[in-house]
């Protein structure tokens, strides 16, 4: 279980958080059909550093951006969205 350093709450267990999506899968409201489909269905799926959107659902309920290594699970930074 990851230990995630929430910028508001400090280091907390992964079970308090919900993974939402990778950062590049966020579909802005202004996105056209092509941009939206690309964001939703084209996955970079990196073997390495990945920026991800997480929700501190059972904590401060803020939306966070994690920079996580998908092989080592090292979490480099956790910042408040955006």
């Amino acid at each position, binding site marked *: 279980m990851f230990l995630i350093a929430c910028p508001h709450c400090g280091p907390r267990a992964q079970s308090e958080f919900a993974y*939402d999506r990778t950062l590049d899968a966020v579909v802005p409201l202004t996105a056209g059909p092509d941009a939206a489909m690309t964001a939703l269905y084209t996955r970079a799926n990196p073997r390495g550093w990945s920026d991800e959107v997480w*929700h501190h659902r059972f904590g401060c309920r803020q939306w966070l951006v994690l920079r996580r290594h998908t092989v080592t*699970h090292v979490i480099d930074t956790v910042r408040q969205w955006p």
Partner: protein
Amino acid sequence: MAVTGPSRAACEPTIGFTFDGRALRARPGDTLAAALLANGVGLIGRSFKLHRPRGVMTAGVEEPNALVTVGTGGRTEPNTRATDIFVYDGLVARSQNRWPSLALDAGAILGLAAPVFAAGFYYKTFFGPPARWLWYERFIRRAAGLGPAPATADPEVYEHRAAFADVLIVGSGPAGLAAATAAAHSGERILLVEQDAVLGGTLLSDGGDRATIDSTRAAILAAGGRILMRTTASGLWDHGFVTCVQRLAEPGQAAGLSQRLWQVRAKRIVLATGAIERPLTFANNDLPGVMTARAVRTYARRWGVLAGQRVVIATNNDDAYRTADAVVAAGGEVVAILDSRDDPAILDSRDDPAIRDSRDDPAIARGYGRFRVCRGAVPVSAFGAGGRLRSVDFRIGGATETLAADCLAVSGGFTPVVHLHSHGGGKLDWREDIQAFVPGATLQNITTVGSAAGEVDAVAPATASLRHPKSSFIDFQNDVTAADVDLAWAEGYRSVEHLKRYTTLGMGTDQGKTSNMAALARLAGAGATTIPLAGLTTFRPPFTPLTLAALAGLDAGGHAAPTRRLALADRHAALAPIWQPLGLWHRPRAHPRTGETLHDAALREALSVRSAAGIVDVSTLAKFMISGPDAAALLAIVCATVVKLAMGRGRYTFMLREDGMVLDDGTVWRLADDRYLLTSSTGGAERMTAHLSYAHRVLAADLHVSAVAVQEALAGIALAGPDAAAILERLTGAAVPAHMGVGSGVIAGVAVTILAASYSGERAFELYASGDAAEPVWDALLAAGATPYGIEALEFLRIAKGHIVVGGEADGRTTALDLGLARMLRKDGGFIGASALSRPALADADRLQLVGLTSPTMIPEGSMLVEIDGDPVAGHVTAAAPLVPGDGYIALALLRGGRARHGHHLTATSPTRGQSAQVVVTQPLFYDPEGIRYRD
């Protein structure tokens, strides 16, 4: 067979236990294995497939053979390692996999199993006709097995706890104690876990200084640390997270609180997990009496139990020589030491005249003190009778010789316990000198120390060929022989992972702790490759078996999930309804009167709504208070319909996922200038909370709005039926709002918000009151003559009106167009999911579309729709009901190109339930199609 050593005589056998019904006695601190050996019980079980007699092989958790069932009733624990349970007074232990008795086993006598159970036998049974396989299957299930699981519930309590530490130290042998001492001096908060019942590890069998153990314990405690005994670090996960299982009671013991699962987070982890001795591979190496050398030494030194009077030691390393000392000290005889090495340096290291005198005889040196040491000698075969070892054949030079012995202590070297290191993503390095993998690079703050890091004696790898590979066991627990490994190789299994699946090698409760390296060596030999190239199977948690109860903890039975209690739960209970679990809620399904079935009651309740008035608890609906100057803007992002509302008005709405599928539906109401109430489905409440938060915080963070979930703050009662308006007017003394209007009033002294929405198709009102004050409102409505109805009747009513349900018709694969809601979509877009709707595939005329079905007979819910039997499936029934009022049955369904098929005749069939109905496709609206009844 066994004798009582000097340390044993001083201790009274005060503990009574039974093995296969035989009353025996043990001394405090005995493991079951030690106690059985002390009582002369050498035969402990029958092997998994071949029913061969098996005894104790090790003195630790790696034990493959001595598996027993302990305890009675719900406390029964099968497959308990006799080496990993400390005897308590009243312990009941039984042998496994034998019939009719351990000594007289039919499977073994008939020798039925051996030819059937070659490598891959199970897969080979798949060839040929299925009937034959079914016959095999029955035979295999009966013949092969471990202990059966208990059939009754375990009365013991299991719990979870969390712990945090600067350093977690796993293992309290010499390396673990040294690490603990150093950590205590540097002021770290220590958590030390030890799976044994006493600290010390190998110090207990190799002569340690008692004072070291005591001073380390004191240092840990003085530094504010904690020591957990009988606690196994079971799995190592990410970011220093380790799960540990603490045994507060022994298996099968009545204790109240039995086990505790610790969830440990540590800044750094020290693994002092030791090493596991490998057996040697030769014919009949599985006989009771063949044990690892360190196990023989441990039983002698720690428990004063000699595993045999005449002991032969077979080794390829120096460590086993210490066992010779231990055997003699305990009063046994060392018949010979068979050393596979031609010139073991240990024999020169002692300045012993006996060694010098024997130099003229190169084969047999009377060295290591006074023992007969046979250089370059390897065991070829063991022989036994009556489940006991009688003699050992060994090869020396070109000759084979025989030694009489009742115990054969073998050592094939030591395998570091790298499991936890590997769980954590650590790499392994191969060490040729010890013929084993040792921890390499690690991704986490983990250090491995002592013999777990490879600080073990060097070995001479086996080079001689096996004479009898079919009876030379590699995996004892799974009865995998050297011949099985060879067969798997010959049949094309190259990967070690495939070898594991094909032969079952390394499976079972011991997960190949004693067998992995021997298997790899055999595989590497067969393929003329090397062990590091052959590779290892992946180590996965748990390190040793753990009970599901420990994983569940207190979250079991009625506590498996929390129960969400309706504000009106007591009022419902008073009516003794049939309850229906819905998510975490329990809602009344129907309220049968005497003699009524569920269906009868639901029909009556639905009819009373159609003909008079009914009330139903709708408190579980998701409800959000959306407030602020940008409240309407947020709703416009989330809702796919028009949400522009005049003050005091509401409308039906639905939300889309980003891919354009319908996410949820509900109603939205403008309560004040900048305040809206949004309702959505019960089951989607959590998801909608996150969705609203995402829309607001991520997609439109600049909006000035707050979205507060008020699901449980507001209790809701729907009052529906032709009499509903009259009842409400009488109770509030005021005019009721028009359809889709908002009103307010006071009922029985309680302030209520009135929303004139209809789900049933009748004139209806949703009344919302503060959850803690809602009961008088319910009572007043009941007293006014409204009939309480449950969700079964609610289903009948909504199906007739073609209202969709999230999860039923809106199943995550249907669009607004599919569900017949397209005309409500906001044309200007700007809502979540809008940009996905232009995808051409979503306009395909052959998509599943919502239709209605009618039939003179009951339509099976969930059944598939076909033109004629045998055709491809054209759709499925999502919900079915009787038509109320009226005759016949109706259903909602998703049907390929359904809107173009109105009037078609189809078959709704459920082969699994053996039900079918002839149906006619219609529009999904069966009652009051003009919508006259619900309007004011």
